[in-house]
């Protein structure tokens, strides 16, 4: 190894050691907190009965003849003997855990029969731990006793509502049983608990795929192909590209008629809560929009020219849709269809017929953002839609929606934030002018604290923009103070360094403006210039 490599290796090692130490110290600090809390609890707890029942040695008659050999398992194996927990319940638990461990070995050897028996014993010993149920559920799953598996999962869920594995296994069992809707529910629950669970995401896609296939064949939500349908597929947008505005539920008119063979759609409907749950785990807050009354429908059965949502704005984004199959099918007029640039091809293999006809398949799966760029400005040619069902759909819009009589509700200005989290949550949801009002409502001396550690470059850019767009034109006297307060934030130094050219331009234009105002404090300004890197 050359000297250089050696030096490099040494450096790497030193760095690694330092990291190691750092993490141990962090670990230690959290442990300190834990143990201090425990200690406090212990002090409050009543005196435990010491094992005073053991006689004092000198009071016992020695029996030299007796010779009992060490018989515990610790004698033969080099594994350690662990202190038994004093609490009898804990002892039961420990015993059950031991039994469970045995069961786990059986599972590893694929001896599910034995494992099931073992887990059942564990449950009998200590019935309060969901893990035994989950493990037994796995065995049942492997043995294809799906009903039993579902039962066990339910038992586990009863013990622990957030038991991801239980939901996941119930989903698997339900899938195998063909209860696709049940499986879907479980899958969404898993995702609600663990949004990053890749397995669950895959399963969700799979279940949805299956549901769709079934549905297109004969499912309760079967909609016969009709001309002029567009299949709108979800588009997955990375988080940073998504709009930060709150999502709103917008009533969507379903123009599908007549319904398929069955009318047990109620059974398949996914509740709003479920939908919210899914989306809450993926994006920002949801704002409920008041449902407008279903519009009275003309009695003529659906002409293909109908439109559910037409946005006057250039980009009405259909952000998240959920509701497998239940989801509204929107029949768009042909004009739209032609102009639609962003509509992906129909993925419905069952009807590869005419390219002009595509079912607008508003569906589920990922938090998808599809942006059909409707070129219809003002959409004069829209006919009154025929409404058969009211659907909720989340639509995010930049401006008003002319399919909906009520214009979008401007959020009322929230009260001044009291804490960092409140600020950041609220901030992202505000429009430009609101941000201005909001910022003004915060006491300037508190600003630094409120920005706190969550202060990121997006917020920073927003702040600058707000100052630039509103403070400066209004000659707000607190502008300099706000800037100064912002610069006191711990994160500021790094953020200032990472300012984009645009932001820098904004800053310098702000400063140019401030310079010309009366009653400025040159010292403060100098400081500001230095802090913001504007010479």
């Amino acid at each position, binding site marked *: 190894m050359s000297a250089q490599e050696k030096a490099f290796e040494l450096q790497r090692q030193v760095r690694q050691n330092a990291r190691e*130490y750092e993490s141990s110290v962090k670990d230690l600090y959290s442990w300190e907190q834990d143990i201090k809390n425990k200690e406090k609890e212990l002090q409050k707890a009543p005196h435990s009965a010491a094992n005073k029942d053991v006689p004092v040695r000198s009071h016992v008659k020695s029996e030299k003849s007796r010779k009992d050999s060490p018989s515990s398992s610790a004698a033969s194996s080099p594994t350690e003997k662990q202190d038994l927990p004093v609490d009898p319940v804990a002892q039961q638990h420990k015993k059950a855990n031991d039994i469970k461990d045995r069961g786990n070995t059986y599972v590893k050897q694929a001896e599910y029969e034995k494992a099931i028996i073992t887990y059942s014993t564990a449950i009998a010993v200590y019935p309060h731990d969901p893990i035994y149920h989950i493990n037994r559920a796995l065995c049942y799953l492997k043995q294809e006793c799906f009903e039993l598996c579902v039962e066990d999962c339910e038992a586990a869920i009863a013990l622990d509502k957030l038991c991801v594995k239980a939901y996941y296994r119930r989903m698997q069992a339900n899938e195998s049983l063909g209860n696709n809707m049940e499986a879907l529910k479980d899958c969404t629950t898993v995702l609600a608990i663990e949004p990053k669970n890749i397995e669950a995401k895959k399963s969700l896609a799979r279940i949805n795929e299956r549901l769709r296939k079934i549905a297109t064949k004969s499912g309760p939500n079967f909609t016969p192909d009709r001309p002029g349908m567009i299949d709108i597929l979800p588009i997955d947008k990375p988080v940073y590209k998504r709009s930060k505005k709150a999502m709103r539920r917008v009533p969507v008119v379903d123009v599908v008629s007549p319904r398929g063979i069955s009318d047990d759609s109620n059974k398949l409907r996914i509740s709003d809560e479920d939908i919210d749950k899914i989306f809450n785990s993926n994006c920002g807050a949801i704002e409920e929009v008041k449902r407008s009354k279903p519009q009275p429908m003309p009695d003529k059965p659906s002409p293909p020219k109908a439109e559910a949502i037409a946005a006057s704005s250039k980009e009405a984004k259909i952000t998240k849709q959920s509701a497998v199959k239940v989801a509204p099918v929107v029949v768009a007029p042909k004009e739209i269809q032609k102009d639609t640039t962003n509509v992906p091809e129909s993925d419905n293999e069952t009807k590869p017929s005419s390219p002009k006809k595509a079912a607008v398949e508003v569906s589920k799966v990922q938090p998808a953002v599809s942006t059909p760029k409707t070129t219809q400005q003002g959409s004069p040619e829209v006919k009154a839609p025929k409404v058969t069902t009211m659907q909720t759909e989340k639509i995010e819009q930049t401006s008003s929606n002319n399919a909906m009589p009520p214009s979008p509700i401007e959020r009322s200005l929230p009260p001044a934030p009291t804490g960092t989290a409140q600020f950041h949550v609220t901030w992202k949801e505000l429009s430009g002018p609101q941000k201005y009002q909001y910022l003004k409502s915060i006491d300037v001396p508190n600003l630094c604290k409120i920005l706190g550690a969550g202060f990121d470059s997006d917020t920073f850019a927003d702040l600058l923009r707000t100052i630039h767009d509103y403070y400066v034109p209004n000659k707000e006297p607190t502008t300099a103070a706000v800037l100064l307060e912002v610069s006191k934030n711990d994160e500021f130094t790094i953020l200032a360094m990472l300012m984009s050219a645009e932001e820098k331009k904004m800053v310098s234009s702000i400063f140019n403006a401030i310079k010309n105002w009366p009653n400025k404090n040159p010292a403060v300004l100098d400081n500001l210039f230095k802090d913001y890197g504007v010479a």
Partner: protein
Amino acid sequence: MDKPQLIEHLHEAVTYTVYDTKWVPLSAKFVVLGSKPNGHGIMDIYELNQDKLVKVKSVEKKVAFKCGTFGAASLRNRHMAIGDFEGRLQVLDMEQPDLPVYNVKAHSGIINTIDAIGGTQIDCGAPEIVTGSRDGAVKVWDIRQGQAPVVDMSPPPQMGDGINNSAGRRDCWAVAFGNTYNAEERIVAAGYDNGDLKIFDLRTLSVRWEATMKNGICGLEFDRRDIPMNKLAVTTLEGGLLVFDMRTQHPTKGFSYVEERNAGRSVGTNGVISGPKATVWVVRHLPQNRDLFLTGGGTGSIRLWQYEYPDRRVVDDSDGNKLGVAGALNMVSAATISTQPVHCFDWHPDKLGLAVCGAFDQSVRVLITTKLNTY
């Protein structure tokens, strides 16, 4: 480098000679026992508070403290048994340390060493304290039984004139409990200044085994106290470290052992062992892993060792008797943390890798050992 590192996390200089440091069970506090220059005993309680140590309590008594232990105290009670320079054994309640819970003139000379058991373990017999003293006696105490020891293992009274009277009495430097795997069994190991090692069986009240090391025994510890005895680590003057396999006792050869003669010498940064053969003052097994233990040496260095079991722990010799086979010792890590001997060391029972140690440079150190979980 995937070896554990021994890192000094906190350092507290004190104004007295430190003799013992012990963690208070189930807390982030430790106790420092020592002797002030005026000969008074001092007990300080420190609490870890992120990057500093906070002194919670300080108690001063007339006589210098030598050693202490929480072994016989329940988690809730926190009674520390302390031996002092005048042979007095007292049990102090950490909450009200002014008035001892138990107080007895245990020995005629300084109590060098103390060990206790039965406080937290269940089914492990009575809580008992064992003390070893300069007067050569090893005594076992049960605080429920007034002023007399429950077992007294004193050397026989010496014959002869007054001058040579004490010469025959060996100085007991180290004691340790072990083999307490049920309510009756219990063993005390005692090490003496002349290198004698005695294993007393408390159940049968007899000497189970005796041996003599080359040098005086400074430190003793069973790897676990509450199991059938498995290993016994012994440290001596002049850098000896011996680990006995205590599972098998041969009728004539006794227990077999592995020996490391260089354990007290300092290890340089490049791993070169140098310097004089310094005393190994202390040996402490990791509470979370009984095959790892640490020794504190006279050169101010500490070393982490791993005991490797042999393939077969027992063989039959030519007479058909069972003979134990000792394993091997690997040094896992070493660090020099002081210029003076590190003579007391205590692993935290609840937190892997956290330890406190005292050295004769009048300071107390909190150490973090990383990557212990990989063993």
